[in-house]
């Protein structure tokens, strides 16, 4: 198998003379040097120009000194998938040459001119920034100066792209959240660099930003922030967690929003506990859920592994809980700062013995918000742990988003009985309604009929300890029935069916962005396919129908083991033979061109696209 360089260029396009608001730019720095401020301000400035834009941070798993790359894609058409960069800003001596090589002929290279051994490429436009010179009269100590130096490329790049200085200034102010002191320290450098660029550089490349009006009703937000906000509007009252990349910022944001919105008479209407590890975090979650709280945690792969035993307890004792898994790359410690979709089958069946858990898949910031509150509804209605599987890409990167819809319905707290409503002879695990979901009571309820003892051991309808075979069968059969009810409670798939399309593609989560772009691209070549985006497991009838109605199915997922394809084949064996898998995981979000190449043979052999690698495919 040949393997692509992650930043491999797309095939050279026919040398355009003007690329307006349609390019990809990469900034290479070392982490811990303060470049994030410059990068995010540049992103924000493009956004403020009304141009659709998206940023992806490709950063190392350490704190300071290792190479880090920030990718910005501007696209007037609104595409936001990762795209190999055409412009590189090379400020890291360690990756200077690597970064320069990444650029295709016709691209642009913007160098820190003070770095020794700058690479020479005749086939790209090169600009060199005299950083020291521009910083010469900056009043700051040496270390702060290093930090401010990043402002030079912000100024130069903005000018080269045609972003007016005042737009940059506004972006910088937004970035600093109104802290004038910081703006005052940084802006002069930006201004100086912008003006130097205007005065000294001759624009020789086709890339620029032109004002448009495609962003004015949008926000810029990370998926973790959106998820946090959704959780807060979902009424989360209890959070227990243990720090782990890339989920930490989700909990941080929950705390920020709760502190802002959910304080009553100076007291918090919530608790957040940093546990001693993930075992304790989920233990607290199960305790709080049992007591009646809307309780959540956020973690990533290693945390999920440590939560296996308690998830099984939650399933079997039927305790609501919400677990966000912001996926990074596994197995094992893996790549803590890269993105993937490798925890799906593990989360779906987490815990020894039989058992299945609902798994929600947000794709966008909007959905991260929506599932933030919906996950609690599902968990409390179904009385079971619910996973929300997002990923580093959605969680930590900055996304354009429409404004979020306020939850359209009251909270669904599920079948909870209180006080006098608790019938005589109440049985905690009795299937009163025939949907597999029993009624529960909460500790603290004064009606003694409601008292029951939660346990992970075999039990009868009254929650009493039982080793009887018939009790076991009755209980586990009811749990299976409950899971069928859950099919109707979780978000339904999003389907875009094309008449007469032979191929149906199934995906979930953030891969949708590259897939939609590829789809539009292929449609221009009259290669059409239907698209189903799973928004949750377990699947419902619509998924079955979609598969039934197409000759060929391709499941695209960002893991090696074809996890969702495997689940579909196992659960719909009658259609398994036509369920093909496109599974690829290298830690980086997909590009349109990857998807095109991978889909080509599934669409039609004659479309097979050269020059790009194919994913590992099973069956």
């Amino acid at each position, binding site marked *: 198998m040949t393997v692509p360089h992650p930043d491999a260029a797309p095939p050279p396009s026919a040398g355009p003379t003007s690329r307006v608001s349609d390019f990809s730019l990469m900034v290479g720095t070392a982490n811990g040097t303060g470049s994030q401020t410059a990068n995010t301000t540049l992103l924000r400035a493009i956004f403020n120009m009304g141009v659709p834009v998206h940023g992806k941070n490709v950063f190392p798993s350490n704190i300071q000194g290792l190479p880090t790359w920030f990718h910005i894609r501007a696209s007037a058409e609104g595409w936001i998938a990762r795209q190999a960069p055409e412009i590189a800003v090379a400020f890291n001596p360690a990756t200077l040459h690597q970064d320069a090589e990444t650029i295709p002929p016709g691209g642009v290279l913007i160098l820190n001119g003070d770095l020794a051994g700058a690479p020479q490429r005749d086939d790209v436009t090169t600009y060199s920034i005299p950083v020291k010179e521009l910083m010469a009269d900056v009043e700051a100590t040496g270390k702060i100066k290093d930090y401010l130096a990043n402002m030079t490329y912000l100024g130069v790049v903005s000018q080269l792209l045609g972003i007016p200085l005042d737009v940059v200034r506004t972006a910088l102010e937004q970035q600093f959240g109104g802290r004038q002191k910081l703006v005052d320290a940084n802006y002069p450098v930006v201004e100086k660099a912008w003006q130097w660029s205007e005065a000294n550089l001759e624009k020789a490349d086709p890339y620029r930003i032109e004002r448009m009006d495609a962003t004015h009703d949008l926000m810029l937000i990370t998926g973790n922030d959106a998820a946090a906000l959704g959780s807060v509007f979902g009424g989360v009252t209890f959070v227990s967690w243990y720090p782990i990349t890339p989920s930490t910022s989700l909990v941080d944001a929950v705390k920020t929003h709760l502190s*802002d919105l959910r304080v*009553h008479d100076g007291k918090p209407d919530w608790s957040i506990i940093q546990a001693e590890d993930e075992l304790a975090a989920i233990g*607290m979650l199960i305790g709080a859920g*049992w007591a009646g*709280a809307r309780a959540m945690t956020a973690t990533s792969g290693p945390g999920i592994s440590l939560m296996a035993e*308690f998830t099984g307890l939650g399933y079997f004792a039927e305790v609501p809980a919400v677990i966000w898994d912001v996926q990074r790359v596994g197995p094992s410690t893996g790549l803590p700062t890269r993105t993937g979709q490798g925890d799906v089958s593990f989360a779906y069946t987490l815990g020894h013995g039989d058992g299945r858990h609902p798994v929600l898949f947000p794709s966008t910031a909007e959905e991260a918000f929506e599932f933030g509150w919906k996950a609690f509804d599902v968990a409390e209605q179904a009385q079971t742990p619910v996973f929300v599987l997002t990923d580093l890409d959605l969680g930590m990167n900055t996304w354009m988003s429409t404004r979020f819809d306020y939850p359209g319905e009251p909270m669904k707290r599920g079948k909870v009985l209180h006080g006098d409503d608790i019938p005589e002879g109440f049985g905690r695990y009795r299937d009163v309604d025939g949907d597999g979901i029993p009624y529960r009571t909460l*500790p*603290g309820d004064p009606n003694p009929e409601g*008292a029951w003892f939660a346990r992970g051991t075999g039990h009868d309808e009254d929650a009493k300890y039982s080793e009887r075979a018939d009790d076991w069968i009755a209980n586990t059969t009811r749990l299976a029935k409950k899971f069928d009810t859950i099919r109707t409670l979780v978000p339904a798939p999003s389907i875009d069916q094309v008449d007469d399309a032979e191929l149906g593609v199934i995906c979930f989560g953030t891969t949708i962005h590259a897939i939609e772009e590829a789809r539009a691209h292929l449609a221009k070549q009259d290669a059409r396919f239907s698209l189903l985006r799973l928004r949750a497991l377990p699947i419902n009838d619509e998924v079955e129908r979609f598969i039934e109605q197409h000759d060929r199915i391709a499941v695209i997922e960002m893991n090696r083991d074809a996890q969702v394809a495997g689940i579909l084949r196992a659960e719909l064996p009658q259609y398994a033979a036509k369920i093909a898998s496109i599974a690829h995981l290298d830690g980086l979000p997909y590009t349109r061109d990857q998807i095109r190449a991978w889909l080509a043979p599934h669409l039609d052999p004659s479309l097979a696209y050269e020059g790009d690698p194919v994913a590992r495919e099973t069956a």
Partner: protein
Amino acid sequence: MTRPAALIPNAAGLTKSDYQGAPSTLCKGCGHNSVANQIIQVAFELGLKPEDLIKLSGIGCSSKSPTYFLGMSHGFNALHGRMPSVATGALTANHKLRGLAVSGDGDSGSIGLGQFKHVIRRNLRMVYLIENNGVYGLTKGQFSPTAEDGLKLKYAGTNPFPPVDMCAEALISGAGFVARAFAGDAKQLRELLKAALAYHGTAVIDIVSPCVAFNNDDDSQHSYAYGRANEVPLEDIGWVPPREDITLDDHEPGETRIIELHDGSRIALAKIEEGYDPSDRSAALTRIGRAEANGEVITGLLYYEDARPNLTDSLGLGDTALVDLPEERLRPSREALERVMDRH
């Protein structure tokens, strides 16, 4: 004595039998049964409302016992070693409830040592009982970490490791209520239980609670080994001789009592001396060390202090339990959402 108590209602309008649970499935004579009985008695005497308290436990014979008391209270039989985290979640979500937790020496000293210490560090308001028998009862006779160095058991051999002292561990982790008791000393145990239930933070009582299956005098006709055919796998012990509960009359502070256990072995219980100052953490550690050096088990309230905030204080919670908040306080307004979005 028990008869009338079972019939005469207490302040809560309940009779003693209302505090009972399902019949015990533990061995006859197991120390854990004595503890359960004293819990029932204390709850009755205090006029405790069953709904004001939750029972919590891990996994083990000891952890089974919450089934056998306070049948009108909610409870959670959690996972092996992980009860403290479940307690933390439940008692934070509803800080109006009291927690009464029962664990074992394996449950809290082995797999659960980390959670034991971290819950104490947070000072969650709960009574934390360790029914300590030096072995894993439910898995049949392996050493637990509280077993003495050099202890010989028929099955497990000789223990080469020093014991974990649960009271010393609790002290080092910042516990403000640390006591040791003996399952057979009903009066002292009841007093400690009452004090613990009134405590505002984590109240740890390490209760020496003998295991009757831990009975290994090989040659005695009374012995466990006698009845056990040596080829039957230990997982399915053939025979546990039923025993009487060990009970102990009250004895004086400062006095040492030698108790004979079911297997004929002896344990020296030293009731803490009058005038002992339980407010000095360092002294408590030293006193424990001295008892150990003397081959005694010191019982009584070893340390007491109530200055440290409990977890509810640290979290700054208000009067209403989180689980009792109305929807208006759980979901901020539409305007609030707009305001937050405007900042993005």
